[in-house]
């Protein structure tokens, strides 16, 4: 670790010696192994070693950013010289300067537990045995589907990554972490030739925190089986439950227009909306950067600023934009009035969870639609218009009914989140969004 920090310091000093007034340097490296298994045999073994160097340069009021994986000392010097020369040809941007070092201060002394020491004990034999076990479990769990099962594949993998950041105005930081993952896919075949697939996965910082393999396999089999005999929906307006693992699609559509770049480029539907009610009062969303073992946890952000827990949406009221140092300065300059740097990074979410799990939500809505996946589509961050492909099930009398495919959801991202009527209790255990299943009213779905 210290060697990476030393490398970053060296390159920062070198950049200044070659003519840059200031510089940001990030040095990183990682090692990962993934093993893929399919239908009784090893399919692919990937062993990867990465290293890279990223440099942002501030030269005579001008700015550029560069990266290289050619870390031979003689190459790095040439790389820096050329990068600095290139920067001199650009036009001045007075908003380009290193962040205020005040923001670097007060970094908490917390162990985020991003590194799992058991990483060093993982062996190739273990990986092979686990990836084969996943297939065996999936075959057993899908036995009742008989010859509908055409292929089962699985994978396990682990990665160690470390990085160091140096800003020439005083920021220094280094961190390392591990991740572990396992996944399984079950491919089925229907009489009409369609071959739906279902998947399950688990991905964590610590190996011991991975979900159990039977749980991951059950998710994959349920997912695949739930697509058999899928039909199109009748076009109309429905009460819709969006399952916890699918929520991220509409969550990112909600949050993307909050970025400094979107606001600066006049591409944000949320411009002028901070401190106003923008979605259902049921929704509270907090960002928590210091969750132990959290996939998104970090003590500092891309500006080097110390991270803090903060509300993004509080009872439907938009609490903050996501503006980094540069766009805050840029918009301040452009608008002639102060625009605050609020920080652009998001880490781990905490929701205003309700007390109903998915079964209870199904019973609650009685009739409607459960959407458990999205497929393609897009949203327009400037206007809020959205149109997504999706699939799932009809819900009748509080129970899952016929599977649905080729469904399109359309409308407006603000209206959709304003129609939120229930938030579930079932935060999805994978990823950093911790999203629960949510119920929305009057959602436009199209099919036949």
């Amino acid at each position: 670790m210290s060697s990476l920090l030393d490398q970053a310091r060296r390159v920062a000093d070198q950049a200044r010696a070659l003519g840059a007034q200031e510089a940001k340097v990030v040095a990183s490296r990682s090692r990962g192994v993934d093993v893929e298994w399919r239908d009784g045999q090893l399919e692919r073994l990937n062993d990867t070693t990465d290293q890279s160097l990223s440099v942002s340069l501030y030269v005579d009021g001008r700015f550029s950013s560069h990266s290289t994986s050619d870390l031979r000392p003689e190459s790095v010097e040439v790389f820096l010289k050329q990068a600095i020369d290139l920067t001199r040809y650009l036009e001045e941007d007075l908003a380009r300067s290193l962040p205020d070092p005040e923001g670097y201060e007060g970094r908490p002394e917390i162990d985020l537990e991003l590194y799992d020491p058991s990483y060093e004990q993982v062996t190739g034999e273990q990986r092979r045995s686990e990836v084969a076990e996943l297939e065996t479990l999936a075959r057993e769990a899908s036995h009742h589907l008989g010859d509908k099962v055409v292929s089962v594949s699985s994978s396990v993998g682990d990665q160690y990554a470390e990085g160091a950041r140096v800003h020439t105005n005083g920021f220094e930081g280094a961190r390392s972490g591990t991740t572990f993952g396992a996944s399984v896919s079950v491919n089925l075949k229907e009489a009409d030739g369609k071959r739906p697939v279902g998947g399950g996965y688990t991905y964590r910082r610590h190996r011991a925190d991975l979900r159990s393999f039977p749980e991951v396999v059950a998710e994959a089999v349920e997912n695949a089986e739930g697509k058999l005999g899928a039909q199109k929906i009748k076009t109309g307006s429905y009460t819709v439950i969006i399952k916890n693992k699918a929520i991220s699609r509409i969550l990112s559509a909600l949050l993307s227009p909050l970025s400094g770049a979107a606001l600066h480029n006049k591409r944000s539907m949320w411009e002028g909306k901070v401190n106003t009610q923008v979605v259902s009062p049921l929704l509270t969303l907090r960002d928590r950067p210091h969750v132990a073992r959290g996939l998104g946890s970090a003590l500092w952000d891309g500006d080097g600023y110390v991270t803090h827990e903060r509300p993004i949406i509080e009872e439907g009221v938009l609490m903050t934009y996501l503006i980094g140092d540069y766009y805050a300065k840029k918009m301040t300059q452009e608008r002639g009035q102060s625009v605050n740097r609020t920080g652009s990074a998001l880490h781990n979410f905490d929701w205003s969870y309700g007390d109903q799990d998915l079964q209870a939500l199904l019973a609650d809505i009685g009739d409607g639609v459960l959407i458990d996946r999205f497929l393609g589509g897009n949203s327009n961050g400037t206007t809020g218009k959205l149109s997504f492909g999706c699939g799932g099930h009809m819900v009748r009398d509080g129970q899952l009914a016929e599977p649905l495919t080729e469904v399109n959801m359309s409308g407006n991202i603000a209206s959709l989140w304003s129609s939120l009527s229930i938030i579930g209790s079932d935060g999805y255990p994978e990823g950093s969004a911790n999203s629960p299943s949510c119920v929305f009213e009057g959602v436009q779905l199209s099919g036949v």
Partner: protein
Amino acid sequence: MLSDHAHEAGESAYRGSPEEGVAYFRGFGVDESLFRAAFTAALARGGEWADLYFEHGVSQGISLKDHSVDSAYTSITLGVGIRVVSGDQQGYAYTEDLSREAVVRAASSAALIAESASAVAKFSVEGFEVKGRPNRYPIAQEWMGVEVSEKVPLLNQLDQAVMSADPRITKANIGMGHSTTAILIVESTGAMHFDRLPMTRLSLSCTAEEGDLRESNGYNLAGRRGFEFINEERLETLKSEAIQRTLFLLDAEQAPAGSMPVVLAAGASGILLHEAIGHGMEADFNRKGISVYSDRLNTRIAPKGVTIVDDGTRDHDRGAVNVDDEGVEGQRTVLVEDGILRSYMHDRISAAHYGVEPTGNGRRESFKHTPVPRMRSTYMCAGEYDPTEIIKSVKRGVYAETFTNGQVMIGAGDFTFYIKTGYMIEDGELTRPIKDTNIIGNGPEVLERTDMVGTDFKYDEGGWVCGKDGQSVPVSLGMPSVRVSEMTVGGVNE
């Protein structure tokens, strides 16, 4: 036919210098002794064959925002990927450190795939030879000699032209980028292949405002060319398309929801082929039995008159490959001939599995990835219908003109693509402008419903990127006007 012309153009190009590749990478310490050490380690456990993929790439770009060319980037990649193959199995390792120690360590890791293999084929090649190749992307003017000071005024002039074109345009962002990637592929048979892949990209995005309405859109162009790609004609096209596509949105609404006929305009509508058909015809999915087209070779999957090609031979095309990323020469592959599925797209592994020749579709994003069957330039050949006749044939439907993205579920065949701009068709006429509407369908079903194919074939010069297995590669598209008799339109209730 246009597709035949493209094929001839590729074949007539000159062949590159065999020594060029070895000399290029010698500067990074790469030589024959390194190959021997790597292959000895790679095949030590019994893999059937192995290959080394050396890559050195340099990308550079500048961008304009707020009327100022105020940022630039450079990205340099260097590394080698080592693959060991045993039947359908492959071990893969890469390193960015080209020292002998690091390369041998990576090769030894890749070799583990063959741990249980019974056949042992020790490496025993006498010499290495660089194979000739066509040159489908000769460069008229290398970017290397072009100073940033020459590029900056081009962006400033374009910005001025955009901002003065219409008072409703209130923001413009412009990007100009280029890359050159040198690759040296060394096979354990001793064959070597060298290529230099250029790419130039231009992009312009605009924001327009009118009263309370605000919209953003853009356009981009890309091709395997040097600085000569930046000419007046393309800059004018970029400007006019980006402005027109942005202003169009101010008057457009989402389409009505439901199932209806969809007419796809010539050009970028090739996204339909890419999503509905292309991915499902990549042979890795088929050899695993998980594609909706797995058992459909030599059967009718589309009406007569539908011919679909995946082509790596179009000069300067974004999807063109002199050789693919396994060293197989780029080819023109007829996937569907007059409605009959004739071929999948193969890499070496799938070709061996099916007992056919590889089709030059083995592509990868970089040395950090294993090659897999990927599309290049995928298009439908021209048909017999006048495009105006196609529009006139629709009582009520959607005319899809420009697109942003698409996605497919390979096994089920369900796919989507997102219409950014288009029109309603009412009583055979283009009427209301529409926008931001997703279309969803099932690949085989949509192919069967493709009942009119126009005479107006057109390639699209946009900077399309295809994603698969976590890898992105440049591709291109082409299409004549086409009518699909019924698809689900994800619009709003009227």
